[in-house]
């Protein structure tokens, strides 16, 4: 194999280089100049993002251990988009004093996790999948524990690392059985030999539980809320959007390519899990006061919706999933963006604190409202389209009652999203959060989100492009 083949893994390579550059910069920059790293890292990543959009050839590396196609590339770009937004949002936070010495760690960790995800996305074998997964998980724990002096942060860290370790143990147990029954860890070989013998079914279930943990599907979701609440806001948004998105994506790929022969097993599984996930997520979200926790549960519920696309098991299904993830990134980041801005200005993250926010900070409230509406799937924002297409996918596979349950859940979710809207717009408050100016980076991030929310919906080309590169069972 010659050298330019390596350009197939351009995303990962560039990202690795960037990571090293940040590392070196960190070593070379004097302590009280660390904040420069923010600018540096962000710029570098922006470059990476742009590079990512350059056309590139597709193919396999390392004997099909690493695969890349337009679909994978698109997914990586989507993730990059999300990450740049998060980086912009986290500037405010990183500038605070307690972080001034460990700014670069944040970037290192984020980038390395991102590398992990990108490898995971274009994995061609379970080994690569596993490695990517771990690389995406372990630094994440460090990120979660980033605020060294906050109990919650530490607790989040430990909860994440331990349960992740256990889940990955279960995962590779599954993989080991897969290997034992098929004699290979390569997707295409496995796909050839897979059927629904008891052991293979068990292996699949174990593997699925491992993935479900990452996507936080009920009943493997319990870590989610605590970790989301404990971690720093921007880390939470990273967790809830990027890592979840990546895992969901690879799950689709694996289900459609590797386990396509046992669709009759995983379709009912998806059915059960998605109903559970949506319902439980909603029921828990209703009661929440802390916005991060609230969004955690709402994101669990959203994961349930993603499964609707998967169960569609068609080209439309995969398209809708990717599209939904894309939309979901912007919606969630919009919400988290507002939360983080407000949190780092006022240390407030409870719904009650938001009472009368509209009268003091109308713009933020509007962004928040749009983001929440998008999550709830209310037109004209993009979330509506995302949900509608997911439902279409499930419906065209004939799962009408599943769709019905899903839409009812959407209604419930609308209820608690409206609670936040109500707090901001309707509730009276004698000392509401005072007016403040949002920092420029955060502002840009929010603007990107809002634009995204409107463009993605009405600009159908995006959807059609995704469909042109995605495939069904």
């Amino acid at each position, binding site marked *: 194999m010659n050298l330019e083949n390596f350009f197939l893994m351009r995303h990962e390579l560039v990202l690795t280089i960037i990571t090293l550059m940040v590392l070196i910069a960190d070593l070379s920059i004097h302590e009280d100049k660390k904040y420069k790293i923010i600018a540096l890292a962000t710029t570098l990543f922006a470059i990476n993002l742009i590079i990512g959009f350059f056309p590139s050839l597709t193919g396999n590396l390392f004997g099909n251990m690493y695969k890349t196609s337009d679909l994978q590339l698109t997914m990586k770009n989507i993730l990059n988009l999300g990450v740049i937004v998060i980086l912009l949002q986290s500037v405010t936070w990183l500038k605070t004093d307690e972080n001034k010495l460990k700014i670069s760690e944040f970037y290192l960790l984020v980038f390395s996790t991102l590398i992990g995800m990108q490898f995971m996305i274009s994995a061609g074998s379970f080994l690569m999948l596993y490695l990517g997964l771990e690389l995406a998980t372990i630094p994440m724990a460090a990120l979660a524990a980033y605020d060294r002096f906050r109990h919650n942060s530490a607790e989040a860290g430990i909860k994440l690392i331990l349960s992740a370790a256990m889940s990955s143990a279960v995962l590779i147990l599954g993989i080991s059985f897969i290997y034992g029954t098929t004699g290979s860890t390569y997707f295409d070989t496995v796909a050839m030999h897979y059927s629904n013998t008891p052991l293979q079914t068990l292996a699949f279930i174990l593997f699925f539980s491992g993935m479900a943990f990452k996507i936080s599907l009920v009943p493997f979701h319990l870590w989610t809320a605590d970790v989301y609440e404990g971690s720093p806001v921007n880390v939470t948004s990273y967790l809830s959007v990027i890592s979840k998105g990546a895992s969901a994506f690879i799950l689709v790929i694996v289900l459609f390519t590797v386990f396509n022969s046992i669709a009759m097993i995983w379709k009912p599984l998806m059915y059960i899990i998605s109903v559970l996930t949506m319902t439980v997520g909603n029921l828990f979200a209703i009661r929440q006061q802390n916005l991060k926790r609230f969004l955690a549960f709402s994101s669990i519920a959203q994961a349930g919706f993603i499964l609707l696309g998967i169960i569609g098991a068609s080209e439309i299904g995969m398209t809708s999933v990717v599209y939904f993830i894309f939309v979901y990134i912007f919606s969630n980041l919009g919400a988290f963006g507002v939360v983080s801005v407000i949190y780092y200005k006022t240390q407030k993250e409870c719904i009650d604190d938001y009472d009368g926010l509209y009268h003091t900070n109308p713009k933020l409230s509007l962004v928040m409202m749009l983001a929440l509406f998008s999550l709830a799937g209310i037109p004209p924002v993009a979330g509506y389209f995302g949900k509608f297409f997911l439902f279409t996918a499930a419906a065209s596979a004939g799962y009408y009652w599943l769709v019905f349950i899903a839409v009812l859940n959407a209604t419930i979710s609308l209820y608690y999203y409206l609670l936040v809207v109500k707090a901001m717009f*309707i509730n009276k408050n004698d000392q509401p959060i005072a007016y403040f100016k949002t920092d420029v980076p955060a502002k840009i991030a929010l603007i990107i989100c809002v634009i995204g929310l409107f463009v993605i919906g009405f600009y159908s080309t995006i959807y059609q492009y995704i469909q042109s590169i995605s495939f069904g069972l």
Partner: protein
Amino acid sequence: MDILSFLVIIPVLTVLGIIIAKDPKHTRIISAIGMGLQLILAAYLVFAYLGERNAGNIAEMLFRQDYMWYANLNIHYSVGVDGISVAMIALTAVVVFAGIFASWKVDFLPKEFFISLILLSTGVFGFFISLDLFTMFLFYEIAVIPMYLLIGIWGSGPKEYAAMKLTLMLMGGSALLLVGILGIYTNSAPDGGALTFNILEIAKVHIPIEAQRLFFPMTFIGFGILGALFPFHTWSPDGHASAPTAVSMLHAGVLMKLGGYGAFRVAIFLLPDAAQELSWIFIILTSISVVYGAFGAIVQKDLKYINAYSSVSHCGLVLFAVLMMNKTAMDGAILQMISHGLMTALFFALIGMIYGRTHTRMINEMGGLMKVMPFLGVAYVIAGLASLGLPGLSGFVAEMTIFFGAFQHTDVFHRVVTIVAVSSIVITAVYILRVVGALLFGPIKNPHFEHLEDAKWFEKLSTVTLILAIAAIGIAPLWLSNMIGTSLQPIIDKLSMIIP
């Protein structure tokens, strides 16, 4: 040029205009101008439509525009109108126009108020011009959501509760609706070919009866909830009671009509076999809500509650007529939608104006208002008479058409429910007269009411607009009912095709 899309564009532009507006005054003026244009456009549309028809254009839908949107799901932005949609559009334009002036003096966050109000109307207009189920549903939801803020922020009484209840119930309805629509979509090509959301194309194919049996109830109830179908109507009293004037006007006047309109444009037109089969269930439900609503209204004390219940009764009549599934009855249904839209809007406008002066809506606390505010009093009496179906006002025409249409059925069941529905006119008279008597006539109960001033110019404008519309329909109904009737023909044909 694409006249229909302007119906959506103008409101959007108006909203943008309001956003850049400096002070409340400009806000009001901009919205007034925008909706005035809309009204003119609607009027123009009516004449353009009639002109086309007289020119012998017998296409099912006129002014068609069709842009591919999501090619791979075969979703189009596809608009077109027939007589029915034209009528509904005209109604909407009138009500919105009146609504703007009825809420002329909103002082709390006026900008946001008018924005939400006009967004709502955008949704409604879009709904009426859509021929594509996707966009139709899109506009439907756009129309429903601003309601939450409108009631929640500018409402009165238990507004949060009411707003939440209304939104959730309507959204629950749209849940059913969505499944129904997707069901129709996935069955829209039983013998191969591309699935489609386009109503006209779906109308051509014959959806398998099993599918129809499943999706007709979903679709009908989905729309029925918005049309205040018993027993899913309970959002309406609370919602109307808490909503600010203009919102009650729009909601009862126009938004509830989306239910009736969709019920036959989607549920019955696209799923005729199941409609024929299952109509009896819903006929019973609707005839219940006709009488039930009227009885419920008799004992209410709050003006808005009275109206809400009477709306339940009248809108029940709409669905009732739609389910009768013959030309005359459906014609009546549309007429009833329009007439009820106008007169209930008038009612709510007047109630708002009266409330603004007396600061109470309890009829037992008022009396003799005719003496102090004759204009409003007379207007209220006219609205009341329209509502109890006085000839020469729109209500009479609509109700009579419905009754005679419904009575064309020869079997006992339809006859009996018709007579039940007819009996509602007496009950209506009872509660209307009760209100009018308690509110306007008799001696003035409360000394503070002695020197309340009569309607302001903008209030008069808003009121007179509606009254003129009501009287116009009531006095010369023929052109309207013909316009609707001819457009009903395709639906009737489709129904008559499958009558066993």
